[in-house]
């Protein structure tokens, strides 16, 4: 296990190195002078100088990159070019909100996707299975921004059940928080639910076709007992992987959901920074999201190795 962990950590550091190059390149690929792109063509030379200093454009690319990475390793992700707040301060406020949204989406997907996936597999090729497959296809194709608008239109504007935007902090009122989080969670979690449902169905179907399940049936065990005691545990391993990997993607993909519902999370931080051409926040924000996604994937890999010893010895 220690060897596996060591290899996985080394891989992660290597990938992080490449990630930092990609993120740093975002400033380099700005066409022409990046400072002019930030303050506009009619800016004074003095303004340009300040921005060049902020973006560190006065030094060679390699030196800038090394300094940037060095600062990040010390926990300094720079300051916002528009508000002058430390990026770490901004992130510390917004990160938990995106995390809450991601976890809510995940809980929704697991609590609905897995049971429905089991039903679909159990009733394979029946009418119920067909309906569930059709719902899965629809869920996978629904763009979350459109789904968000539909939910606001129906549940907020027509029925008045939930607030269309904003967030009540969980510390202030749990039920208030729930009422503001439910529509964003549905928006972000619907596609995820469809993915989990599909994965559970196909994984369970594959296990149900295996020899040991046939033996269990031959022993005269009831279908429910076979699924609960034998099939489900084995089929859940790929489902857990998908859930883990999708959670990482969900965290990053929160940008549109947060924009629609005006949730002050990481996604809306980056989206606002993009519209304000605040490249420091864009760069650092994307780097932090990528690190988070990598960490989540790492944890999933380790959990996977604990669940399935074959992975460790590959």
């Amino acid at each position, binding site marked *: 296990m220690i060897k596996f962990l060591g290899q996985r950590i080394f*891989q992660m550091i*290597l*990938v*992080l*190195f*490449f*990630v930092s*190059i*990609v*993120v740093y390149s*975002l*400033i380099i*690929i*700005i*066409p022409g002078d990046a400072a002019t792109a930030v303050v506009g063509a009619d800016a004074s030379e003095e303004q340009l100088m300040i921005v060049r200093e902020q973006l560190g454009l006065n030094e060679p690319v390699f030196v800038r990159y090394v300094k940037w990475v060095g600062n990040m390793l010390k926990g300094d992700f720079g300051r916002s070019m528009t508000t002058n707040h430390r990026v770490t301060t901004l992130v510390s406020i917004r990160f938990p909100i995106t995390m809450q949204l991601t976890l809510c989406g995940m809980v929704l997907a697991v609590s609905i996707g897995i049971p429905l996936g089991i039903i679909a597999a159990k009733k394979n090729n029946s009418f119920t299975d067909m309906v569930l497959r059709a719902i899965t*296809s*629809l869920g*996978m*194709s*629904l*763009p979350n*921004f*459109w789904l968000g*608008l*539909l939910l*606001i*239109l129906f549940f907020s*504007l027509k029925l008045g059940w939930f607030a269309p935007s904003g967030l009540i902090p969980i510390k202030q009122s749990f039920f208030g928080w729930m009422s503001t989080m439910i529509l964003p969670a549905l928006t972000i979690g619907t596609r995820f639910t469809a993915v989990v449902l599909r994965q559970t169905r196909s994984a369970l179907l594959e296990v149900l076709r295996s020899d040991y399940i046939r033996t269990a049936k031959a022993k005269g065990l009831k279908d429910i007992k076979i699924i609960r005691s034998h099939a489900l545990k084995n089929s859940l391993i790929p489902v857990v992987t998908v859930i883990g990997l999708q959670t*990482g*993607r969900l*965290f*990053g*993909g929160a*940008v*549109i959901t947060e*924009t*629609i519902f005006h949730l002050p999370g990481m*996604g809306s931080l*980056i*989206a606002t920074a*993009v*519209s304000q*051409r605040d*490249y420091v926040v*864009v*760069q650092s924000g*994307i780097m932090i*999201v*990528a690190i988070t*996604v*990598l960490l989540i*994937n790492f944890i999933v890999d380790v959990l996977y190795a604990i669940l399935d010893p074959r992975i460790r010895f590959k």
Partner: protein
Amino acid sequence: MDNDKKTSADSNRSLKRFLRNKFNLIGGIIILLFLLISIFAPVISPHPPNQVNLKMSLQPPSKTNFFGTDSLGRDVFSRIIHGCSASLIVGLGSVGFSLVVGSFLGVIAGYFKGSIGIVIMRFMDALWSFPSIILALGIAASIGPGIKNIIIAIGITFIPGFARVIYSQVLIVREEVYIKAIKSLGTKTSRLIFWHVLPNSITPVIVYSSLMAAQAVIAEAGLSFLGIGVIPPRAAWGNMLRDGYIYLGVAPWVSLFPGAAIFLLVLAFNFVGDGLRDVLDVRMTQ
């Protein structure tokens, strides 16, 4: 000659199997319909897409404006018809871009393996670790909005997927006896890779392309929704959704119809992708 006949018979059988599934057929027809709409947009659109008429602002659907009008009095139906080309161009363009670059990198990494393979694939892992919308957002923010740039931004985020698909396939194909036989004849490495290894590794990429086209349509609409996609006043479904979002309470049609169009196109690409997977996936065929 016999081989040609066999291949042609295989293709016919695959096509028949593909068309037998109603969902595939529906998906194919919807994509074809959207293609025709985008080609003949100027002919079939009842109004000019950018014609502003403030007196007609936020009018509900009627006989003259089938899907109502937006805040500037522009006909939503006509704008959806004209916006179709933007979605299709970005969808197909970004898939084409990532298919070419991703396949090239994947085939090189898979064929040579060793340090070249490790560097390429670790770099792909790095790109893969970004949630695509966030990376596309960052790239689009740097190189600016516009259709060409959006194709590049979305295309870059799709490269690792294509590279991985082709890489895993090349690892199998390069060990095949016929490839070793061609190699022993002294064929140039570049010819061997691009004439023999790549064509024999391409089938899973076809399936993947269709599924990614659906993702590209969503990504384009998402970026346009965030304001860094297609530049207004050019009609694009994401832009229209964004414009209508503010008026959701009073004029829901402004954003609902473009959203439905995105949904329909994405669904169609997904149907076709799933259908192609069923037909072309060797394991499933067996």
